[in-house]
């Protein structure tokens, strides 16, 4: 039967979800704030509702989103990632209003979203954990607890928002002075971002690989994993390049990590799609980090290597269908790499290029190439949202083939107007360590020269620039 499904999100993920809804033959409903009134997701969805002027407040406003859902008469809501995706109150509000929330139940989000509770669940299930504190007490007492923990385990440590996720609300602390200065700031930021100012500390595992496992579970508790991903190449905890499967050569270890992920999901009564994140240190010890209770930005790489449409599966599971495959059915074939092409200037501290208009947009195509974007030629990037323009995902039979394909696609990708991360990725993928698969979360810090590139211009383009200048100034300013 045709269902009406709302996408409570924007940007590329809104489009991604709308596509899955439409492929399933359901009706898609988009919502938007004013700065997004020229966005693609509104045009592509079957219906669209305006929430308010925003920015970034209406997408986060549970009452407004629920009211819009009721007005449109939707059966289900897919939250995407970010915004309300991991907000248990939102899941709860859906449940209370008889709307299907496409994701785990609110109490699971609540439990896993609270990092301290999550750690307790995992500890009880025998999952390896990085040393850490519970949520710090309020005020001076919390600071005292923090100082005490650091004395015992040593610096550096990570200061994290208990309700945070996706790399947000995390800061590295190297000494006590910094610790004291940052706790109040982290609390304020957490309050603003997650409406919860609880923070906690965790021992920092130096130069780990970030390995994560995609899991899927149906209502009967059948839980499978879709293999591993390596998301080690990050900047300030924001992932830039994501790979499936992990390049760790010890397959037994990777299998063990994947099995642990399933165990962790079961221990938390997990339902629907999720991601179990691990840190793997240089001695190949692995530690549970967290479970993200939503679809990830980088879900595309898993889809490419397994052939399973994760978002479609999410919707079907939420509508009560059982998993249509078991663990044995899932095969990982070849490699996939996703790069997040952001409107940022890598050479200026990855400063966002919001407010600029995409004057030329020419995307690559061909075998093994997937694009998840939402911008178009003439689109002005709103300054108030994140800077992701398009995710480029390539799939190949071997690692080398995949890297070659990515290089070809990046070379053929033309985006002018804003500066983008494309030239930076071209440098990354030609780095010998990257090619060998030898990288961890310190990759950018240990390879600063990757930012030292020049915009290379062909002779034809250089002369075209001169012709453009003559045209614009109505005479050659260099020949006067």
């Amino acid at each position: 039967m045709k269902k009406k499904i709302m996408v409570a999100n924007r940007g590329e993920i809104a489009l991604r979800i709308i596509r899955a809804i439409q492929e399933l033959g359901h009706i898609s409903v988009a919502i938007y704030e004013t700065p997004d009134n020229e966005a693609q997701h509104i045009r592509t969805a079957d219906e669209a509702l305006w929430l308010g002027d925003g920015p970034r407040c209406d997408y986060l406003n549970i009452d407004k989103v629920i009211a819009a859902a009721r007005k449109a008469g939707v059966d289900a809501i897919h939250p995407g990632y970010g915004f309300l995706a991991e907000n248990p109150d939102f899941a709860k509000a859906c449940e209370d209003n008889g709307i299907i929330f496409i994701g785990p139940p609110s109490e699971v989000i609540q439990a896993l979203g609270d990092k301290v509770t999550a750690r307790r669940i995992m500890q009880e299930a025998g999952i390896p954990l990085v040393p850490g504190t519970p949520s710090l007490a309020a005020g001076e007492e919390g600071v005292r607890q923090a100082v005490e923990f650091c004395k015992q385990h040593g610096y550096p440590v990570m200061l994290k928002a208990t309700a945070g996720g996706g790399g947000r609300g995390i800061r590295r602390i190297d000494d006590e002075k910094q610790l004291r200065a940052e706790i109040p700031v982290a609390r304020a930021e957490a309050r603003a971002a997650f409406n919860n100012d609880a923070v906690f500390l965790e021992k920092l595992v130096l130069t780990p690989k970030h390995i994560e496992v995609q899991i899927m579970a149906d209502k009967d508790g059948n839980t499978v994993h879709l293999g591993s991903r390596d998301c080690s190449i990050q900047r300030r905890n924001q992932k830039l390049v994501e790979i499936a499967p992990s390049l760790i050569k010890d397959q037994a270890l990777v299998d063990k990590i994947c099995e642990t992920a399933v165990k962790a999901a079961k221990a938390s009564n997990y339902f629907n799609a999720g991601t179990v994140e691990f840190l793997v240190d240089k001695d190949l010890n692995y530690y549970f980090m967290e479970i993200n209770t939503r679809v990830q930005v980088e879900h595309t790489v898993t889809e490419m290597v397994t052939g399973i449409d994760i978002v479609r599966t999410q919707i079907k599971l939420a509508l009560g269908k059982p998993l249509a495959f078991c663990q044995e059915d899932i095969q990982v074939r070849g490699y996939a790499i996703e790069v997040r092409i952001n409107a940022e200037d890598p050479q200026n501290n990855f400063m966002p290029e919001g407010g600029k208009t995409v004057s030329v947009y020419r995307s690559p195509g061909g075998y093994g190439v997937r694009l998840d974007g939402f911008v178009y030629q003439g689109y002005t990037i709103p300054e108030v949202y994140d800077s992701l323009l398009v995710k480029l995902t390539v799939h190949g039979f071997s690692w080398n083939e995949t890297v070659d394909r990515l290089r070809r696609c990046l070379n053929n990708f033309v985006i002018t107007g804003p500066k983008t991360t494309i030239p930076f990725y071209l440098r990354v993928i030609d780095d010998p360590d990257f090619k060998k698969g030898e990288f961890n979360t310190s990759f950018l810090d240990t390879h600063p020269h990757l930012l030292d590139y020049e915009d290379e211009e062909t002779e034809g383009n250089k002369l075209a620039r001169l012709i453009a200048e003559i045209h614009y100034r109505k005479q050659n300013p260099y020949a006067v």
Partner: protein
Amino acid sequence: MERIVHGMSVNETLANLRQATGYYVTNTARDLSQSDYKNRILLHTDLLAAKPREAAGFFSLEITGGASIHVDILRKQVDPFLKLELLRERMPKTLFQTLCRGINLFGYRPYPQNVIRLVVREFAKYVDVWRVFDFLNHVPNMVAVFEEVQKSGKILEPAVCFSTGPEHTNEFYVKKVGEILAVTGEQIILCVKNHGGLGTPKRIGDLVDAIKQKYPEIVIHYHGHNTDGNDVGRIVAAVQAGAKIVDASDHAFSGYYGPPSILTVVNTLSEYGHQAVGLDEAAVVETSEVLRGERQHYEFFESQFKGNDPTVQIHKLPGGAAGSSFEQASKGGFLDKMPAILHQELPKVQKELGNFWSVTPGSQILWTTAVSNVQGGDRYGNPSGDLKNLLLGKYGPFPFYQPEEWIYEKVFGADWREIIEKEGGMEAIEDMDIDHERRELAKKIGAEPTDQQLVSYLQHPNDAVAFFKFEEKFGKSYVLPPSVLFRRGAFRLGEVIKFRDHAGKEHVIEIGPQQTDEDGTTHVYLNVDHHQRVFEFEPEATAGNGGGAAAAPKLSKQEIEDLAKAGDLRAPFGANVCEISVAVGQEVKVGDRLVILEAMKMQTPITSPMDGKVQQITAKVGAAVRPGDELVKVTPAD
């Protein structure tokens, strides 16, 4: 009779010239470009003409030197060495000729000896015939160039500059030739350099005859300009008196101030029984057929006053100086004073300053002084630095007589005698530390320079660096035709420009639409090799050499940090102010939070660099700040 070709030795060349029963022609493409087109004829055009010019069988093609080397890099963005290399590829036989201003090289002021020698050595790799002159006919000023040319095994062509007036006798010039020969020896060509096209055919015939009487073996190359319309007459007289080489130019481009048309000269002399050796008239015609279509693109650079100027015999301005004097007058708004300047003041100044030769850089000194005398009212009351140097004798001694004392007094003041005593006379210019200059250049361009780049830099430091940067940004633009580079007005929508780049790759560029934002930024869309490209132009930016006020410079990261240390806290990146944690007058300690900025969802505290007091708060909660914007000022505690 034999055509003279590139690669012949100096002795072989001179033997051919001496034995020739006819005369030879030099195609003065460079002088034509300088005299009638402000030196703008592009390499692109010379390359078009290369094949028929090569076939034409000239004694030489004068294609470099004079002001052209400076204009090559300053206005035409072509490497003067690359130009010669590319022409040589297409013209393997033709001798290439240059015009060198002796100690002033290709510029306007004397250069150090070691620079002169290095520059000549580098150019001698490409240039076969070296015409060398000095505007005071002061032979010592030319010696360094003479020596280097002869050492390089190239043909040396010293010039005597010619002018008119009671002092300009045959005896004077014959004696000058003797001075030159004493330095160079017999194996040279002597140029009679009539840059103004002065005198009558009879006067030139007499002079050439007088030189030949004294030095029968000497090979004379007559160079003249057609400003008064009578250079063909002077050329005929010169050849009849025994000149072996004459200067003329392609008729498709001949104008009013340059040398006359080759075919006119050749046909006229033919009637007098003198044949041009090795010259293929059909190829001369073909050259002009090829060039004719290009002339329209140079129209803007032609003199705004058309027609010959017989009054050159009064004002004596050389070649292109006549044309550009009117341009200056027009730009300077004193066009109405031109008759007074050209026909009264300039001849008067010439006489007062010693009746030397009105050619670079002397012609510029005379012109500037005459203009200043008329414009300022107070004659010699506002002397240029170059006039002072002339009077001090920095360029060399006056050839005939010293200017009168009142001029010195006017220029230098009451104690002029002391000044002349102390500062007067030529002084040896100290050698330049060339290795140091090479390192400086390397720093400026961020790469080890080639010897050729160094040579351009030593002559014109700023313009050479600007040129190297231009090439880095825009590539080698000589491949573009004058219809593009000298375009007036925008291109048509849909207009297609095709060209082959320096490496040989074909490109096609189609002009697309253009749009301007509300903030004034213009986007120019071009289809470059079938890929759409957009080029942005900020309204306040000014490009090229026109200059203009640039936008206020942004603070660098380092500057922002330095200001912060001093208590002037600026936004280190673009962000929103999400909290102001202090109030004006509040006491703060090192590390206390002053402001919190938020960018891309990350909050960053700005903390106090010192113990002190909050003096000023510029930031406002919720406001967007750009890098370098003021946030808070803190003054240190005492």
